[in-house]
């Protein structure tokens, strides 16, 4: 089956899909492939993007033909270990394209987070093969917009919602553990595979390996000069939600081996005195590359992302255990260490940001919020105050997935860099 046959089999709108993908190769070439001094091991990730709606979708399709299911997620809190343990696939979905926002607005308010509108549009337009190949969407209650949008999405694809608590007290941890156990039963029912100590231990191991590979990559960015562009790491972080977890971890580790050598030889992608930026806030889902591209175009280098397409996804691993019940307990514990703005209070996030800024030797923090994101938009107040207390130069940016405000964003970024350099 070639790609077009596959897409037809998945019920996609081929004409619209062609229109959507048409500009991607040129954008990807200018933003990524044309940049000098990229690590050789980026070749794998470039190839994945080069056929982003092909190879991996074929794999998932074949997995389904063999009896497995595909579960799609939008959040770092969803325990993919459980899905992977049953031999089914857990993937993240595209949610960062302006192209689908207007379709999303057919059923959603205009003044809603673009990530939610983009997601909805991908489904309504039938132009995301990952969405089309999915049996279920696993939603979660991290914000009101998502929570209510799942009800609409459920009219188009079965949507299972996990209730994430909003505080981190003992009773909240109990609720979440119960949610995780219910989710495990749901996955067992849907996949017709029972969780065992063996397969669940393997699931935990597989996902831990992926997160540890990403941690290793993140840690290499603290070196001066930076051995890799932030934009390349962002791409890898974005792909971490899609790709086969075992192969992906091996490729990230291969990249890290190459970067180890670069560090040893003092080779970097930017001059040693290039301003180093830590990005915090809301995620940059595929294909949202605008912010990193602008920062690095202005002569700085992004050294970390305190976001869901970054540190929040991989900073913690699941502790191993001897039996299924204890494993589920540990699986439930990991996400509650993650400091998303959906929690109140959320002082832990301020500590995360300060630690990252110091560890990565960041010269400034750019706190990015998607338009209409209430939790991160409001919490930006505390991030700004914390940075002022720590005397870390700080810039707050708000944007969406459109290209029209690039000039305005670049002015702000350049002014921040002038501020640091002056």
């Amino acid at each position, binding site marked *: 089956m070639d790609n077009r046959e596959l897409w037809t089999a998945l019920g996609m709108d081929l004409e619209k899909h062609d229109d959507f993908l048409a500009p991607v190769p040129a954008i990807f070439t200018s933003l990524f492939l044309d940049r000098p001094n990229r690590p050789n091991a980026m070749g794998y990730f470039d190839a994945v993007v080069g056929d982003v709606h092909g190879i991996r979708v074929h794999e998932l399709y074949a997995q389904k033909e063999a009896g497995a299911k595909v579960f799609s997620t939008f959040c770092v809190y969803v325990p993919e270990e459980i899905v992977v343990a049953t031999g089914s696939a857990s993937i993240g979905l595209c949610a960062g394209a302006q192209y689908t926002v207007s379709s999303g607005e057919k059923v959603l308010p205009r003044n809603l987070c673009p990530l939610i509108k983009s997601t909805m549009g991908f489904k309504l337009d039938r132009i995301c093969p990952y969405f089309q190949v999915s049996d279920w969407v696993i939603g979660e209650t991290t914000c009101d917009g998502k929570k209510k949008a799942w009800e609409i999405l459920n009219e188009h694809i079965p949507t299972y919602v996990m209730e994430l608590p909003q505080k981190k007290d003992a009773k909240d941890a109990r609720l979440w553990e119960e949610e995780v156990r219910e989710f495990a039963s749901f996955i067992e029912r849907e996949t017709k595979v029972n969780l065992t100590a063996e397969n669940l231990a393997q699931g935990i191991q597989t996902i831990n390996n992926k997160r540890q590979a990403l941690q290793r990559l993140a840690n290499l960015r603290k070196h001066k000069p930076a051995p890799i562009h932030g934009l390349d790491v962002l791409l890898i972080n974005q792909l971490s939600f899609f790709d086969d977890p075992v192969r992906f971890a091996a490729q990230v580790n291969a990249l890290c081996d190459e970067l180890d050598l670069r560090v040893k030889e003092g080779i970097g992608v930017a001059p040693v005195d290039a301003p180093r930026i830590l990005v915090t806030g809301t995620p940059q889902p595929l294909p949202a590359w605008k912010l990193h591209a602008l920062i690095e175009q202005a002569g700085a280098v992004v050294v970390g992302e305190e976001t869901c397409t970054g540190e929040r996804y991989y900073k913690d691993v699941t502790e191993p255990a001897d039996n299924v019940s204890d494993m589920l307990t540990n699986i439930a514990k990991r996400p509650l260490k993650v400091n998303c703005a959906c929690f109140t209070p959320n002082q832990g996030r301020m500590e995360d940001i300060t630690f990252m800024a110091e560890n990565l030797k960041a010269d400034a923090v750019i706190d990015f919020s998607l338009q209409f994101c209430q939790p991160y938009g409001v919490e930006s107040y505390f991030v700004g105050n914390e940075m002022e207390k720590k005397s870390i*130069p700080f810039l707050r940016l708000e944007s969406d997935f459109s290209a029209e*405000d690039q000039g305005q964003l670049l002015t702000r970024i350049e*002014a921040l860099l002038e501020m640091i350099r002056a």
Partner: protein
Amino acid sequence: MKQAGLDLGSVNTKLVVLENGERVYSQVIPSRFDSVQAGITLINSYVEKHGEKPEKLVVTGYGRVNFPEGRVITEISCQGRGCHAYFPEQMYILDLGGQDAKVIKKNPAGKVVQFIMNDKCAAGTGRFLDVILKGLDLTADELDSAAAAKPIPINSMCTVFAESEVITMLAKGTPKPEVIAGLFKSTAKRLANFVESVGHPECLIFTGGGAHYSLLVRFLEQELKEKVVIPPEPEMTAALGAALLA
């Protein structure tokens, strides 16, 4: 040595030339949607009068990246530097330009330490005021009498909604001066909140074309309960800063 600062703004383009630190030339022309061309025109007319190009040039403003020569510095740094020349003691600047509004905080050395700009919206910018005032088709007398009028609250800050709100008020027979006063008062309130989201100045420097609206300045002082100071030619300070940085 001559140093020039060229500010390629969305509405007007400005050139300031300094000789040994003293201003020897300053000129403003409308950008007419092509600030780069306006900048070239300004440089050419300077050369016609003075025979040669200034040795150093810094370009700033919205059109800066497309200008064929000069060192590029953002309008934020330039504004900070230009204002520092007039008001070295004051730390906070509000700039109301054609396309955006910004608040800049500088330190005692004139270096920018913090800034914010309005996001993705014309609300509270010079353009907002221009659009509404143009729609009102004002005479000079009407504008003058607004100073004494009781301001009527205008709630919409979206340019489009505010315009229709204004039209509704006029249709209901609200006197124009009250609407104008209301427009300035509600803009002042929004700008004051914008300033206070950065800090609480004892005295605010107000620049950009918006600083020419004396009623806006008065309401801004009322809202902030602080003094507002305006440099001579408030639309020229970014160009001056650019020249000083050249």
